């Protein structure tokens, strides 16, 4: 890896200031993704600002029934939080399905959100990659792409976002609280992430100097009936081929409300709004679920080796909804 300077920030505001001073500085949480990328020379920060102790590492109750997770909270601790588990089982399940116990012990909540999208060519500096070197080309499109995007990709990039936690948070309409040059702001997760378009080098809409301090989850009564289904070849320690975060509110056999998000299919956690719209007010039955899943995947643009993800995503949505509707 390149030589770099290491600094530790006392709090988020200081981290933001330190970031502002060095254009090529990066924030360090658990380091489970960034340090790998530095070893591979994919990331070459001039300075690392350690924020692993700069923000809250706890879950707090928000007025009105929501929860707030400190950015520095370790994934293991977040997954084990009793309130979180009771109110948002989908989030705890997503956390526990990610990586390995050792990595979850180290990884932070904000670090999990900000891990880079994955693709073998991005991680190999001897190969072209538009995300790493804009306009150098995308070998993945014709190459090794079994686990890359089927939705929202661009000619420039078909990488997938690997986080499980973020898929659950996307379904839950979570927002991130950010301290930046212009003060503090709340950004919905759907606006934090972005599709690759013609700027695949940008995974998020964050500006240099932004520091995430919290993740806020609004109250969602029916999220107590929610689940995360992660599909993968290997039973553990593997990124999702496809994952589904779902919450379902059924009254009198009808879908009153629903939240659905997909992982492993796009450059960002994919909120399945088309499927949600197709479900609301309709009978909570398998045929409805199938129609909704098909509608969501209609825009899919699969490639040679990842076309299996289209039926897989549809089946996984249907299965998740069926299981949710069977819950007491």
């Amino acid at each position, binding site marked *: 890896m390149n*030589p770099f300077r290491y600094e530790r920030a006392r709090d988020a505001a200081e981290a933001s200031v330190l970031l502002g001073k060095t254009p090529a500085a990066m924030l360090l949480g658990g380091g489970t993704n960034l340090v790998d990328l530095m070893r591979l020379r994919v990331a070459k920060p001039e300075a690392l600002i350690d924020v692993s102790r700069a923000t809250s590492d706890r879950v707090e109750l928000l007025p009105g029934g929501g929860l707030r997770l400190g950015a520095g909270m370790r994934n293991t601790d977040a997954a084990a939080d009793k309130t979180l588990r009771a109110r948002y089982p989908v989030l705890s399940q997503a956390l526990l399905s990610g990586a390995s116990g050792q990595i979850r012990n180290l990884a932070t909540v904000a670090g999990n959100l900000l891990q880079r999208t994955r693709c*073998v060519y991005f991680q190999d500096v001897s190969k072209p990659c538009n995300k790493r070197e804009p306009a150098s080309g995308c070998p993945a499109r014709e190459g090794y792409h079994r686990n890359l995007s089927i939705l929202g990709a661009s000619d420039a990039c078909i990488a997938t976002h690997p986080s499980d936690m973020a898929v659950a948070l996307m379904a839950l309409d979570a927002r991130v609280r950010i301290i930046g040059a212009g003060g503090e702001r709340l950004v919905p997760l759907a606006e934090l992430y972005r599709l690759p378009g013609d700027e695949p080098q940008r995974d998020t809409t964050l500006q240099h100097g932004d520091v995430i301090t919290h993740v806020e989850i609004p109250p969602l009564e029916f999220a107590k009936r929610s689940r995360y289904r992660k599909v993968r070849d290997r039973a553990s320690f593997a990124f999702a081929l496809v994952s589904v975060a779902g919450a379902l509110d059924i009254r009198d056999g009808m879908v009153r409300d629903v939240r659905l998000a997909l992982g492993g299919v796009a450059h960002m956690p994919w909120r399945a709004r088309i499927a949600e719209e197709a479900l609301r007010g309709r009978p909570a039955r398998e045929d409805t679920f199938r129609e909704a899943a098909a509608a969501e995947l209609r825009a899919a643009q699969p490639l040679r080796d990842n076309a299996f993800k289209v039926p897989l995503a549809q089946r996984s949505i249907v299965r998740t909804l069926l299981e949710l509707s069977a819950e007491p």
Partner: protein
Amino acid sequence: MTTFAAKTVGAAIDRLDGPDKVTGAARYAFEQPVAHAAYLYIVQSTIARGHVRAIDATGARALPGVVEVITHENAPRLASTEDPELVVLQSNAVAYHGQIVAAVVAETPEVARHAAALIRVQYHEEPHDVELHAGREGLYQPDPENVGFEPDTHHGDVESALKTAAASIDVTYTTPHEHNNPMEPHATIALWEGDSLTLYDANQGPHAIRGDVATAFGLEPERVRVISPHVGGGFGSKLFTHGHVVLAAMAAKLVARPVKLALTRQQMFALVGYRTPTIQRMRLGTDNDGRLVAIAHDVTVQTSKIEESVETAAVVTRMMYAAPNRRTSHRLARLDVPTPTIMRAPGECPGVYALECAMDEMALACERDPIEFRIRNEPERDPGSGKPFSSRGLVACLREGAQRFGWQPHTAPAKRRDGNWLVGTGVASSTYPTRRRPTTASVRVNTDGTYRVQIDAIDIGTGARTALAQIAADALETPLERVRLDIADSALPRAGGAGGSMGLASWGTAIVEAANALREKLRTEFAGNVPAEGVEAYVEVGRNPLAERYSMHAFGAQFAEVRIDADTHEIRVPRLFGMFAAGRIVNAKTARSQLIGGMVMGLSMALFEETVIDKRFGHFANHDFAEYHIASNADVLDIDAAWIDEDDPYVNSMGAKGIGELGITGTASAIANALYDATGLRLRDLPLRLPFDI
């Protein structure tokens, strides 16, 4: 021939080095303390064929802490370039993607790695050819002299027999590139003292490494010492010497100080071997009684342009089942790829996969239960060599295993369903040859009644250190605590490596013979009294002469239950059971670990392992553990191995057959056959992935 009363042998004794390993006290090659060491980092080619035009190391050389940059321009010349794998930095030619083209020596590993990244290599690139497929141009028959076996065999008339067979199949199986991937990356410390070289090295047999390195540098073998006290797995990738070992020695010579080198996981994919993809056409035919009338196994594999190496996948079919008309063949493509190496039961592992799936297909095609079909085609003698078997426990394993597993005989896929799971069971035979290498050993007795056994054996995580101590204790008729065993150092009596499942058989035989010689010496020369200076006996044990008369193999039967999620097609293996016949089992605990370890690798092979070559660049695209999947704990559920009592007086002094590779053979077939039982779909390409368009 057996001269052996087992007391300690057979017991489930804990590994003698277990506490050291779990507490971190056991030092592996890279951890050996060496004063004033510098660190080496490799620069690899980013083209698959051509040559280096220029190397700009200005940036690297300017970096504080960099000791030397080594390229083909300043690398010491090797005395021998006979072994293409070891010809490192002797010219500017590039023969595969990832070849060593330069290296940096620096004061710290971090500086070495950073400096390596600053080196700019310019290439003249030529078109490369890295794709193996059936019927491609340039397939040829390998030279039997080179590869040490007959590439083709023919008995009778397979074509006619297949035409008139009551039932027949003609199917093709494929396995992908697979990488050995031991947990401990390859590592070497090279230390010169004058013209003498010491290597602390992660390998599967110090003597072989010593010989290769001595040849490469033109040294007398005695001037090279290879020490390898603990090794974290090899699976074949550490049996032969690879270029990085020569590079480390070269670098240490150039900078005149000790040099440490550890490969990264990514580097290992290009530098220490892998298993070639295999394309295996299987043709089987039966008569009205369910007896094989013909069996043909035609194999296509790849080698590199620099060296001929053959995955002998069809060899097992020459021996396994009776059939009057038989044919096997091997064809090879020379590609611009790294040289494939031996990996986890080379030949047998992919060969048994194709054979045992084909046997399942054939059984069902002629409406026989797969177990009954195998038993019906059990040969009386080795059909290939015509020799009798020294012992053959296959039928006993199939029968006993079926009972323990709860096998339900069937002649068609059961397609059972349990909730959302499709459930099936499968069976396959396992086998691996039982061989022995010439080996030497010495045993010394001291006046206090303790013994010192010396042999350049090695424990790569198998438990060999413990098992050999058990053998020595029984051979010397003494308690285990009185035996001190020195292994894993080429300064000890010469022995072959841990490979071909020959380790324990070869080393153990030499130890038993040395113990006998010591007893004899004590009796004849010292009237049974140990003199003050102790007594030592040294023996050289040659090949097993009985191998000329008998066909020697270990056998087994594996049983799998497979569940497939009806929606997502995720495949899980809730139950895996292996019943083995491998002669005398020396340590019940480490043997079970080895057997189920092999089965876990077989499970990995069936469901996950696949290295993908990107034909445009010629590189292995998924060269890390995030992308190259091996089984995790969560994939291994109810797994067990057991064995039948088998007395084989012909194989070696212990009556023990090698079990290092037996466990992996057959597992993937049992799983694939179970998947067919569950779904009615015959998948023939590994890893198994159920399509959605059905």
